[in-house]
C-alpha cells in the first residue's frame, strides 16, 4: 500500500492533537510579512540610535516647553506657580469648578481609581485590620482619614479646598503619598475635591 494515506493520517493527527495558540515566549512569526513590522519609531518603543543614550524613541521636549492648550487655567489655577492658592497667597476656600452631577460623578470615578487604593472608597483611610484602603489593610502605611473623628483632632479633615488641591498638584507628593500631578488633570483634581466634600457630608449624617 502507498505510504501517502498513512502520512496524511499522521499529519491530520498531529494537527488535531497539538494545541493551537499555546503559550510561547518567542515573538510571533509572521510568514507573510507584508509591512507588519516597520522600522519606524512608535510610542514607548526602543530606539537603537546611538546618540540617544536613554534609548527612548519618544524624545523629551526642551525644558520649559508648554504644550498647546495646557497653559494654566486662570480660574482653576489663579496662581500658576502655587497650586491651590489665590494670587495674594491665601488658600482657595471655594472650589472654582462648578458643582453639578457631572463633575461630582467624574470626581467619584477619579477618586475610586486613584485615591481609594489607600484612602478607601469611603475616604476613611487608616491601616491594619481597621484600614479602609487595600494598601493600609495589608501594609503598615499611615493613611489619613478625610472624616473628622469624634474627640480627635484630625487636621486632614479640616483642610480648605485649596489645600486638598495643592496636595494633589504637588510634584513630589506629601509624606507617604506619591505625586499625582502628572496623572490627574487640573479639572479632575478639583472634581476629586468636590467628591471628598461629598463624602465628608455623607459621613456627618
Amino acid at each position: 500500500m502507498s505510504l501517502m494515506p498513512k502520512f496524511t493520517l499522521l499529519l491530520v493527527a498531529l494537527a488535531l492533537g497539538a494545541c493551537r495558540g499555546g503559550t510561547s515566549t518567542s515573538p510571533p512569526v509572521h510568514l507573510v510579512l507584508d509591512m507588519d513590522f516597520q522600522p519606524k519609531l512608535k510610542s514607548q518603543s526602543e530606539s537603537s540610535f546611538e546618540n540617544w543614550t536613554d534609548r527612548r524613541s519618544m524624545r523629551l521636549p526642551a525644558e520649559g516647553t508648554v504644550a498647546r492648550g495646557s497653559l494654566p487655567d486662570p480660574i482653576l489655577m489663579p496662581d500658576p506657580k502655587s497650586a491651590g492658592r489665590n494670587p495674594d497667597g491665601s488658600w482657595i476656600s471655594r472650589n472654582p469648578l462648578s458643582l453639578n452631577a457631572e463633575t461630582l460623578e467624574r470626581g467619584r470615578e477619579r477618586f475610586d481609581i486613584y485615591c481609594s487604593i489607600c484612602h478607601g472608597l469611603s475616604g476613611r483611610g487608616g491601616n491594619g485590620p481597621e484600614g479602609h484602603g487595600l494598601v493600609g489593610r495589608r501594609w503598615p502605611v499611615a493613611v489619613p482619614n478625610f472624616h473628622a473623628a469624634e474627640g480627635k483632632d484630625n487636621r486632614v479633615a479640616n483642610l480648605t479646598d485649596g489645600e486638598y488641591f495643592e496636595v494633589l498638584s504637588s510634584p513630589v507628593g506629601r509624606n507617604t503619598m506619591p505625586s499625582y500631578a502628572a496623572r490627574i488633570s487640573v479639572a479632575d483634581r478639583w472634581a476629586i475635591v468636590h467628591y471628598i466634600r461629598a463624602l465628608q457630608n455623607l459621613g456627618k449624617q
Partner: protein
Amino acid sequence: MTVLFPKWTNKIPVFAALGAACKGLVVIFVVWFWFSPKHIDVGYQPEQPILYSHKLHAGLLGMDCRYCHREVESGPHATVPDADTCMGCHKQVKNDSDRLTLLRDNYGDGSGDNIPIPWIKVHLLPDYAYFSHAVHMNANVGCTSCHGRVDQMEIVRQVEPLSMGWCLECHRAPEAHVRPAGVKPTDMAWTPTEASIAAARERLTRGELNPPTHCSACHR
C-alpha cells in the same frame, strides 16, 4: 512471457491521484489552521524584565487598570507606566523585594543610566493599523473584550487574535462588548446581559454608536 509490470501497478495512477488530492487538502488545512493569527499571534507570553503580576495587582488587590495605564482614556496608547508610578507605592510597600531590583536601579536618584525599564510589548498590531484605546474606552468597550481576564494572568499573554477579521466581527456586531453607562470598562468580571445587549442595540439604531467598517478607520 515475463511480467514486466505486475497487475497491482495498474492502480498506481489511482493512488497517485488520491494522494495528490489528499496532499492538497492537507496543505489547505495546514495553512488555514496553523498560519492563522489564532495560532501565530495568540498565546504570545514574553518574559518581562520584572516579574510583575497582573493577577496580584489587578486581581487580588483589585486596582483599577487606569491607575497605571493612565493615557488609555485620552490617547491611542494605554501606555506602560513609568518607574515613578511603580515607586509611588513601592517606596513603602515591599520596598526590599528582590523582584524590584531593576525598578529601584532604574528609579534611583537620577544617577543611573536613565534607560527606561525594557518592558516587552505583548499585543503587536501590524504597523499599518492605527488603533485607538481612547475611542473604545469612550464607547465603553471593556478591557476584557480584547485582553481577556488580565486580572487572572500572572504573566500577560495575548488571548485574542487581533486580526482584521476579528476586529470586523465586533465592529459589525458589537452588542455583546459595549457596556451600559454605569458599568466600568475596567470591570474584569462583567459579562453581557440581555438588557445590556438590548441597550447597545438601541444605541446602534439611534446612531449613537457607529463602529466604522471602512478601510480608513484603521488604515491611513
